[in-house]
């Protein structure tokens, strides 16, 4: 276990815990407005202060963690769910039109400016968490397809694949039985990274008003709400900002740590 894995794991676990806890308990109802008590700095009653509607920021952060995690998780799920099979197929049929087609389509998706497309998607489908998921998920597909294909291609060169082919196993079966388990580590690592990018992307989309819609709290929207009030109530920007930073930091550290931990090549290479 590396230091970064532990630190990252602890940070991520804290965020996850806060999100889970919010299902059964938050200090206050995160939607309850109390306009006379608005913009309070952190104090004994509201540990992280209140927002411009007098809502309890701690409660909103906790429920917001749920939103961030859910959006990013499902988006990564979409990316993996579609990208990994595509990558496996491309690698299995290396050099074929299928491979070529998948890779070119990947390049094409990469070529589209992601934020512009996200904005377009929400212009077409309307703003909302689901559409944010779609927008983020779409751009996760080529990432996973590419990573999977790259790793799978080198695995296909290995002799144990040859052995499986000698046993008469087809490409699909080999991909499922031999390739997938051996790229799993890589996918887990990439998954954590995409997960953290998803959280950033959700925050960005919500910040421009295209992510989760009220009353569902979202860190990005909290930042958007806070933006005109930075000099008035800095905690409104600092608290969600730090929540995002710590979560992303935690996930990235965990991803790095996992990579070192899971990759035998680097094992022992640490001073």
């Amino acid at each position: 276990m590396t230091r970064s894995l532990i630190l990252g794991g602890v940070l991520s676990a804290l965020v996850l815990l806060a999100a889970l806890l919010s299902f059964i308990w938050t200090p206050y109802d995160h939607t309850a407005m109390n306009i006379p008590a608005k913009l309070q700095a952190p104090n004994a009653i509201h540990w992280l202060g209140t927002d411009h509607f007098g809502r309890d920021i701690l409660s909103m952060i906790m429920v917001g963690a749920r939103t961030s995690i859910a959006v990013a998780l499902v988006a990564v799920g979409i990316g993996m769910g579609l990208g990994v099979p595509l990558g496996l197929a491309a690698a299995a049929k290396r050099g074929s039109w299928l491979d070529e087609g998948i890779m070119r389509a990947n390049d094409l998706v990469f070529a589209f400016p992601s934020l512009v497309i996200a904005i377009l998607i929400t212009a077409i489908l309307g703003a909302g968490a689901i559409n944010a998921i779609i927008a983020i998920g779409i751009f996760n597909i080529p990432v996973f397809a590419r990573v999977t294909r790259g790793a799978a291609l080198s695995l296909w060169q290995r002799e144990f694949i040859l052995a499986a082919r000698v046993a008469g196993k087809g490409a699909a079966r080999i991909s499922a039985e031999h390739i997938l388990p051996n790229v799993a580590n890589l996918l887990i690592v990439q998954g954590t990274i995409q997960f953290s990018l998803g959280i950033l992307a959700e925050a960005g989309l919500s910040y421009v008003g295209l992510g989760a819609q009220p009353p569902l709290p979202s860190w990005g929207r909290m930042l958007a709400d806070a933006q005109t009030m930075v000099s008035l109530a800095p905690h409104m920007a600092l608290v969600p900002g730090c929540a995002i930073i710590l979560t992303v930091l935690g996930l990235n550290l965990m991803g790095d740590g996992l990579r070192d931990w899971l990759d035998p090549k680097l094992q022992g290479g640490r001073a």
Partner: protein
Amino acid sequence: MTLLEITNLSLSIGAFPILRDVSLSVDPGEILAITGESGSGKSLTALTILRLLPNCTRLSGHLSLEGQDLLSLSEEQMCDLRGRKIGMVFQEPMTALNPVQSIGDQVMETLLLHSSATKAEAEAEARNLLDRVGLPAERFPLSRYPHELSGGQRQRVVIAMAIAMRPTLLIADEPTTALDVTTQAQILDLLRDLVLDYGMGMIIITHDLAVVADMADRIIVMRKGEVVETGSTAQLLANRRHPYTQKLFAASNHQADLPTAKTTDPQDTPLLEVRNAVRDYPLPRKRLFAPAEQMRAVDHVSFALHRGERLGLVGESGCGKSTLTRAILGLEPLQGGEILLDGTPLSGKGLTAEQRRKMQVVFQDPFGSFNPRHRVARLITEPFHGVPDAPTGQERDDRVAEALSAVGLNPDDAGRYIHQFSGGQRQRIAIARALITRPELILFDEAVSALDVSVRAQILDLLAELCSAYGLSYLFISHDLHVVRSMTDRCLVMQKGRIVEHGKTEDLFATPQHPYTTSLIAAAPVLPDLATGAA
């Protein structure tokens, strides 16, 4: 005066002792060979001399070059020494050169670094050096890049770099292991000539005793970080005092006790018959709409293998041996000809389950041929896939146990993972996997090439045992003539995709007909007959 003097050198990396009390010396003009099995500390001894060790090493003992204490030198002084006084040639020519720099620049770099030569002078000298190592100007201008050279040619560039400053000591760590026999012979000749020409001292590290015997003035045998025996070549070859040395030489010269082949009736349907097989690979198009050109990897190959027969296939790297194997296994389509297994032709869509049951394969790489995520039981039962009457449950377990026992492993090993086994054990598992369907024919594609001599000897013995126990027929593919000679009844010689010669193994080795076969046999280093000197 001795050139290099090492006394009581000990080295540990982290908590692990690697070298223990190693002492050796090299005189000018002398070739010292260090030999021993994999992991015995040969390379680290060489790296210690250059002081290019990994981090966290602890070093003790005495190390001096031309009377100068190397261990007391600062890193800067060592940098000055490396390349100027000590040249080094590493094993892997494919990766030892910077891929983005021309060979000329890389050779010149040593010169520019250690002398006050101008660029033009360095260029001229680099040219000389390349000429000297056998890379003439007309075919190998300085502007060539490493990827444009073959492995042997790259190794020559590395050698040119190492001798650029006429170092007093040249260290060559397995300089030819990655090369073909014929290329190996050329490189070894080159090194020997250089030592003679320049009066350098040389340390050559190799696990190939035949090379050792051929090259060295003196030999050091290492085991587990210790020097077990040292002496002049003639003396050491004759005496072999230490039991380990004896074992090593015995293993190198190992003759498996192959049961005599059943005489086969040539009128029988051959177990495997290859008729005019052709395999083309499309080359990348030269121009966008130019027709794709073909690379013919297997060129009208025909042969037959009868029941009970052990057929060898030798040839240089890249001549098409593996391609042919894959075609026989139905993994690659043929562009011409056909392959019959027990009289029935293989269809284009791969083998039927019955054909697969009859024919199994063992690959070269003991580390790459198993899925690291599966347990041994699952790994070795993989050939049962799609076999209609594959055993299940208890019967399957029994078959696993039987196969493991047959290759000398414990049936309990079925529950372990592959990383828990050594290379030799892995190759046993690979053989167990091939045996589990009780096949009639096994293909061995370089099945022992990656193994240490002593392990190799064990595996060869195992094969011989299996031959007598099961009456195996196999196709044994290797570039190692010595092994093919001891393991087969009949032999094919392949060059550039064609079978250039075939015949009874003994006849073929004794009286080669084709010039290619002759050159192959000539290039292969052989251990001198040791029988006389055996104590």
